[in-house]
């Protein structure tokens, strides 16, 4: 018999559950879709048995596999939001159902609290799918256990090794919760045998089966990184879940007695939790990461104009964002023109990424080399990233493109086959396949042809620790490489090397430029008007008199305000995007 009236049930159970689901879906999709972008771009799920097999060489690998499958669907952020919200809802329902099965009729506070905490954890972009998935499966198994007849409860003792093999450290949640449950039932034998069964399998696996460290066999697939470093909060959730059977039996009379009309206050706790959750998650939106990931998204889509406009409208100090912005400027021929419209770092870290074993650095650093046409090095960065972190859609595409440019079609085909086994990149794989064994098709492609042309130059050894040193050999080999030329000019501007910039003016002419890029012209004007040295003879390029006038005005204001740097900066704000401003205030 149902002891709770239907209307009350609707108000206290279904409505808050529906609200949680709707709020989570809308919030994740509308405000934190960057989470899905980041995670989807960080792994690549492949169909086929061999990919599954690769994940079965250690306990927890299957959960990792399922997590990657889920993340593949983040390709569509709405689907990602829907899946995550549905998982949260299921977890809430399962806990509630478990409580009910254990005798707590209105077991709402703990389920919603757990759901809310998991939702909060999920708003960290590093919080991976395996966590909620792992928890969900373990709760489901416990729920199945509760619904088994006592004599069939032995299945959990027998199957725990298999559950450990499939779900790794997350099976400890099931072990813990069943232990608490069996102890409450006074089933000492089942409890003890569960531990013994798992311990024996763990020992056999450690000694004879799995080539992993003992530590990793204990914790995998859990890691502090995959929960976004939120150890305390995640630990609290696990602790709450472990003691669900206990909480289901506890009654706090004082709270139970508080009623509003016919309804107990405790029954409204989900609403309170949801309200607090809404406040908390809005506070947890990571605007900096959101900005960065939006830039990265536009970068991968090669929407360079939009990317530049976005960063211009919403200025950033993030060096990785500025690095991508500079690649976009270079690819659109505006680097030396608009360089100082954006914040630049005088050590060159917004222009190049030095070789460091840091995920984002290796993932993105190669794009600089790709832009200037050092294809081998672009490929090496993508390859090294793949070796360390595994395939991702974009690094795989970089591997394909660079192999196609180099004419290594057999290797390109292998990578294309991998991309073809993804869920949502089949069209791109099909597109790349058209270039296989067809040099003419590669040459005639706008992007690949251009890079192939830039690549066909003499050789040198790359200096990835000092990326700027690679520009001169590239320019020595091909002084008409416009992107390398822009990078060199930008580097010289950062170094305040006016002489070096002026010496490159003939190369600009040779490269066919009709006009000196704005920031470069500012440096040249300074060199000329301050009589720093000799000006080279130029055939076509002219210095715009207006730039000279602007410099004189700048210099006049500067002379008037130079005694007070702060005042000078304010007075010269209109020149903030000039080389002059950078030189004097950096």
């Amino acid at each position: 018999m149902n002891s709770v009236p239907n209307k009350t049930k609707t108000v206290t159970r279904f409505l808050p559950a529906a609200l949680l689901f709707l709020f989570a879906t809308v919030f994740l999709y509308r405000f934190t879709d960057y989470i899905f972008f980041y995670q989807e771009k960080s792994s690549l799920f492949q169909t086929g048995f061999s990919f599954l097999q690769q994940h079965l060489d250690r306990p927890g690998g299957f959960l990792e596999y399922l997590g990657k499958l889920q993340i593949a669907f983040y390709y569509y952020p709405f689907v990602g939001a829907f899946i995550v919200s549905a998982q949260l809802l299921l977890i809430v329902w399962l806990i509630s159902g478990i409580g009910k099965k254990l005798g707590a009729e209105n077991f709402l506070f703990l389920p919603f609290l757990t759901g809310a905490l998991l939702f909060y954890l999920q708003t960290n972009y590093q919080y991976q799918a395996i966590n909620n998935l792992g928890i969900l499966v373990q709760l489901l198994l416990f729920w199945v256990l509760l619904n088994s007849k006592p004599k069939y409860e032995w299945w959990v003792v027998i199957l725990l090794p298999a559950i450990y093999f499939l779900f790794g450290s997350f099976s400890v949640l099931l072990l813990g919760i069943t232990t608490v449950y069996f102890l409450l039932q006074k089933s000492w034998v089942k409890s003890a045998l569960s531990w013994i069964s798992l311990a024996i399998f763990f020992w056999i696996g450690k000694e004879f089966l799995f080539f992993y460290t003992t530590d990793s066999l204990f914790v995998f697939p859990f890691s502090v990184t995959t929960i976004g470093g939120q150890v305390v909060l995640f630990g609290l959730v696990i602790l709450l879940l472990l003691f669900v059977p206990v909480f289901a039996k506890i009654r706090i009379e004082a709270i139970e007695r508080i009623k509003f009309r016919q309804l107990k206050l405790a029954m409204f706790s989900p609403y309170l939790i949801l309200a607090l959750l809404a406040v908390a998650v809005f506070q947890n939106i990571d605007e900096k990461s959101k900005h960065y990931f939006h830039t990265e998204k536009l970068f991968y889509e090669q929407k360079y104009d939009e990317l530049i406009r976005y960063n211009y409208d919403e200025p950033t100090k993030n060096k990785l964002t500025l690095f991508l912005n500079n690649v976009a400027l270079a690819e659109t021929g505006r680097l030396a023109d608009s360089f100082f419209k954006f914040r630049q770092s005088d050590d060159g870290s917004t222009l190049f990424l030095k070789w460091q074993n840091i995920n984002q650095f290796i993932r993105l650093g190669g794009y600089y080399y790709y832009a200037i046409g050092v294809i081998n090095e672009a490929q090496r960065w993508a390859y090294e990233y793949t070796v360390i972190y595994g395939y991702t859609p974009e690094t795989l595409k970089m591997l394909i493109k660079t192999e196609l440019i180099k004419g290594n079609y057999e290797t390109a085909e292998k990578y294309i086959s991998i991309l073809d086994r993804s869920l949502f990149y089949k069209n791109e794989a099909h597109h790349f396949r058209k270039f296989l064994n067809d040099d003419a098709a590669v040459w005639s492609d706008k992007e690949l042809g251009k890079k192939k042309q830039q690549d066909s130059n003499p050789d040198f050894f790359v200096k990835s620790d000092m990326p700027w040193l690679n520009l001169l050999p590239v320019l020595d080999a091909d002084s008409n490489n416009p992107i390398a030329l822009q990078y060199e000019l930008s580097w010289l501007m950062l170094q305040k090397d006016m002489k070096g910039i002026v010496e490159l003016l003939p190369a600009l002419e040779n490269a066919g430029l009709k006009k000196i890029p704005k920031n470069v012209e500012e440096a040249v004007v300074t060199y000329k008007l301050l009589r720093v040295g000799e000006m080279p003879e130029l055939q076509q390029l002219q210095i715009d008199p207006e730039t000279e006038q602007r410099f004189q005005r700048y210099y006049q204001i500067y002379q008037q305000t130079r005694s007070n740097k702060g005042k000078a900066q304010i007075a010269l704000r209109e020149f903030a995007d000039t080389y002059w401003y950078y030189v004097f205030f950096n």
Partner: protein
Amino acid sequence: MILLISGFAINAIIKLTMSLRYHLIYFVGLLFLFSCVSKPNGEFSKNNNPVKIYPDYTEVIIPVNIAPLNFLVEEAGDAYYLSISGEKAGSIAVSSRDGQFRFSEKKWKKLLGENLGAKISYQISVKMEGKWIQYPAFSNTVSFEKVDPFLYYRLLYPGYESWTELSIVQRSLESFKEKTVIQNNVVGQNCVNCHAFNNRNADDFMFHMRGNLGGTYFVEDGDLKKVNLKTKEMNNGAVYPRWHPSGKYVAFSSNKVVQQFHAKENKKIEVSDLNSSLVLYDVDENEIMQVPVDPEKQFMDTYPEWSADGRFLYFCRAAQIAENYDYRDIKYDLYRVAFDPEQRKFSEPELVLDAATLGKSVSFPRIAPAGNVLIFTLHDYGCFSIWHKEADLYSVNLGNLEVKKCGNNSDFTESYHSWSSNSKWLVFSSKRGDGLTARPYISFVDENGVTSKPFVLPQKDPGFYREFVKTFNIPEFAKTDVELTPGEIREAAGKEVIQAQWATN
């Protein structure tokens, strides 16, 4: 109650009907399947062009104990039929819908066993638009000579600086069974490399491990012993090993390696030694000593190799580079030095092959256990031939020092190689598949050192090499099984390292 019973009855009938329906569909499906996989019924046209198969197993000499040479036909068709017939006896007939032919191990073994020293002939027919086309037959020769039953190799991404997963793997050559012997993850992603056997015997086995649990691990009486071979007298650690046939010594080169990355050429990486020398480790005494062949330090000596009787140590030698060197000028010659194993004494080194005069460089000298032939890798410069597209295998007749280019080379890299215990089979790394990843190829070698057309290590899935992105590194034949468990490796790694002692003689 009646309603309840009739409900159950209806349910049971529905289930039975469903079950029958599924069974019917299943049987019709099977029938359809068998009716589709057909064979030529007498009428066919002939195509005189050789049939394209992958991997290329046409006209190769194979050992009688090799696993089935599964392959796929690269001709378009709706159905495929293959008949293999033995010159002496036996046959196998297989149909395929997608051109893939995977043979039963039992039937394959029987066929090869019945045709020792004879040929087995492959006749392929392809059905296209309802008509069968027969291609010219090709054959394999089944050698009397068995190949060693195991092949060991290191599987890794052909990368440059980074690694995550490295494993030394044992593959049965008589079947498709593969097992991991060592994986670096067992000790937390330390690098494992340079596995080496004495006389292809797993009882004398060693490998290096780099990183925080680093050391050289020796299998000794079934146990693992961890030794630190680097002493304060040595500038660099011990790298490339070769066991003395007695099992008492291991010669190593001790190298300082540098790698640089090409910006433009299709060759991606340049690996070279800045300096190197030879050292000798006495396993029983736990002593390591300099091989005294270069007291003035004028040379870079590397890649040691023992003669079959253990009386000579062969090695590669180049002039010591100066500060501003050009990597393309480093050329290694082949040398040897006499060795007295009883006294642990070396004589004066002597030149065996002057490769530098030819503008070439030698690496990986490997002598057949029979002692009559040495095979080495020849390339344009340096000693890291795996990244040299032009690298090829050459043989030296040790009786008359006549040098010949091997017949098993390709336009791509041929590099590391090792001999079977009967000196009849050579396994070598070749990048002829895609130019990037090395695969183990096996050639028959006759008594004059002439190598036959090689065949790639067979795989259960004939398309395996097209998809597999890891490289096969240091393929080595072995006669016996290495049985190390993850627990044993962890335990050995956790042990206190045994420090080798420096000796002057």
